[in-house]
């Protein structure tokens, strides 16, 4: 079976810097793939290229066998690829529930006339949007439940902002969920909780997850496969154990052994 998402020789240059230098990788349906690598390895650039924020300078990206290069970000989202951002990007002055409801935007279709006249179909759709948003928020248990849903996003704690961002992405009903350093800034307990959440995203909701992560406990705990990047290229791939013992990966993280 063809992979769900296939990245074929993708290149992205910023001036003289090659953020992605002919990267090849793939993600199969139902996998949790972790992307690791030192700072500046090209991980976030990979996310931006996949979601259409950047146009690649070369190569191709295939989703279910069809190229998605050149699509606008909202089209990519509608196809079923949702993401979070490394530095949390919520709509800070909208409430928690509204943030999640924005996620449902691309799965709904009410237009001007429906909205102004509040047609039965629009009302029904609005109820569905709200229900789906609540469902996405409830994935995180009591963290984003109840009175919190009517609070504004900026009033949330840091960890909850990250959770809300994930809930918003999940509310777009994606096939692939891409998480950019979801545990950054979380305390150890919250990190472990999130590790379980990522596994549940696949097992309970059936999402395919692509995650950039620095915390090796999380990488070890969730990954079906790990891809290690450095200088925009794949330097290792396999299970966590394989990658953890890969010489090039160790070198990339720790530097070359001193000679003599």
């Amino acid at each position, binding site marked *: 079976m063809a992979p769900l998402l296939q990245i074929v020789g993708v290149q992205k240059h910023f001036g003289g810097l090659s953020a992605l230098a002919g990267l090849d990788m793939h993600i199969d349906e139902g996998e949790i793939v972790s992307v690791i690598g030192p700072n500046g390895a090209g991980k976030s650039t990979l996310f931006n290229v996949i*979601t259409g*924020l950047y146009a690649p300078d070369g190569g191709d990206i295939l989703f279910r066998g069809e190229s998605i290069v050149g699509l606008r970000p909202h089209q990519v989202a*509608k196809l079923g690829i949702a993401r979070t951002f490394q530095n949390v990007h919520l709509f800070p002055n909208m409430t928690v529930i509204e943030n999640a409801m*924005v996620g449902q*935007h691309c799965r*709904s279709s009410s237009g*001007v006339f429906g909205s102004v006249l509040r047609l039965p179909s629009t009302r029904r759709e609005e109820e569905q*949007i709200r229900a789906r948003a609540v469902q996405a928020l409830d994935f995180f248990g009591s963290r984003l439940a109840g009175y919190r849903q009517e609070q504004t996003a900026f009033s949330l704690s840091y960890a909850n902002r990250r959770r809300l961002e994930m809930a918003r992405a999940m509310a777009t009903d994606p096939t692939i969920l891409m998480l950019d350093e979801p545990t950054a800034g979380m305390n150890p307990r919250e990190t472990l909780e999130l590790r379980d959440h990522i596994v549940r995203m696949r097992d309970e909701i059936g999402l395919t997850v692509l995650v950039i992560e620095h915390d090796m406990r999380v990488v070890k705990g969730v990954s079906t496969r790990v891809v290690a990047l450095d200088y925009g290229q794949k330097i290792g791939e396999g299970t966590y154990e394989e990658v953890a013992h890969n010489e090039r990966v160790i070198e990339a993280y720790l530097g070359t052994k001193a000679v003599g």
Partner: protein
Amino acid sequence: MPFNRLVRTGLVGGIGVLFVALVGLMAKVADINLIGTQVTGAYTLLALVPFTVGYVAVRPRVVAGQIESFSTARSVRSGAVAGATAGALIAIAVLFTDRYGVDRVREVFIQVDPDLIELLSFGQSATVGAVILIVGGGALGAAGAGFRSLNPSQRRNLGMAVSVTLLMGLLQRIIPIMLVQLGLETDWLYSKVTGGLTWIGAAIVFAATWGASWFWARRGRTAKETIRTMTREQPGTRLVAGVALLALLAAVPWLVGSVISDVLGTVMVFMLLGLGLNIVVGYAGLLDLGYVAFFGFGAYATALLTGATLNTTTGSAAPALSLDLNFYIAIPIVVLLAAGVGVLIGGPVLRLRGDYLAIVTLGLGEIASILLASNWLTPLVGGPQGMRNVTDASIAGFSFRDPQHFFYLALAFVLMAVFLSWRLANSRIGRAWNAMREDEQVADAMGISTTRFKLLAFAMGGAVGSLGGALLAVKIGSLAPSSFEIIVSITALAVVILGGMGSIPGVVVGGLVLIGLPGLLREFEEFRLLIYGGALVSIMVLRPQGLVPNIRRSRELHEEDRSQDKWAGDLSADEQVAAPLTPLGEGSG
């Protein structure tokens, strides 16, 4: 209080008074009797400045990490110094003019005349006048400083009572008319001789306002709460309240008479512009400075579709292209076309943001006004001479040209626009606009087609704005390009900003304040822009979220406070999570 700071504040106030006097505003308000013959507009203005200077001069400030605090006596002394400084500056100007010769000063400052000098020296000699200015300034400054040392509720009651009394005096042309229409006696309140309030009337207004303010502070919250629960629990009350409000609005034109109805008509034309622009600027966050294009389009399209004629030097001529439709058939067409124009204007500027968008739309608006006056379009829209014989939108002989009738047409249009804005704001579309305004890139990544929703905002804003233009055409019956210049865009934007961006009640209040007040106080017509500017600057400083803010928008403007509290907020939120006693799913809200 450091001496030089007091002097500085005083000088700023003094310069303010000199400015007002030199531009002629002081002389303008000299003949308006607010209360009796003693409190005139000029003396109120003159007294208000040292008072404010005293109040401002003793504002608390932080020195070496501590809030400076003074005894009341000391701050009153400080206020006196500041107020006297303001007075002294005016006194110097008066003495200088007196010595140097009024006529010679007048060569430069044309508004300076013997009457003004007499006004500023209180009918005495220049020297005595100067002494009065300084001593009086000191006393008022002291009073201003004393005012600050009152406790907040006293301050509010007193401030409210004084402002309402002065406002009643200022509205001497309007309130008596309304009272007479209601069949009430006005002689006890307004003097027929002076035009302003009588002293007894002023005292009654003052006491009544004081009482109301005091009562509201004590009971207002509970009263508001009662009303809120009542409307929530009994849908019937809401309906009754709505009908009562409509009935009240319907009575307005007959209550206020023809002149004020005319002003209200203009107010509502600008309310429509404000509501439309609010969709573009307030909801979608696209700063459009060329909004006049839609206003002009609506007006001229209505004229052309309903069979108006061109003004020519020899008489009138038929436009190159026109239809002779009924107004109510033409309006939907105009609105749809205007939405199309919105898309056309929005198209080229889609990729622009913020300042760039503002500049380009400003240019597009200019193009629109130039086109209306151009030779090229003269066969269609009459060029500089414009058009006439625009329909009066009559229904079965009931003409809407009459200001009191026009009010109803305008009201219907405004209510429609309010309804449209409100429904759009609380829908999937409003949510998308909101998200786009907060973070365009993220909104895109979350599946919102920003292109589409920007165009939609321009189209909706354009449609509502064109309604305003159509109304204007009906109101005055003739059109000229001079009504469609950049000042319209600026005024509409001022209405939105003053009221509060993204707030529908804000636009209504903004329209009443910015268009209604100057319209009622016709004598200030030439100072209109000065007053606009002053009002906008004050709002930006004192109440940046607008008069009736949109809740969400007012939060945005307090972004800094928020980041200050961030850590405190994070801590408390985490504690809430960690607290083992919080039962799951049983939030306190």
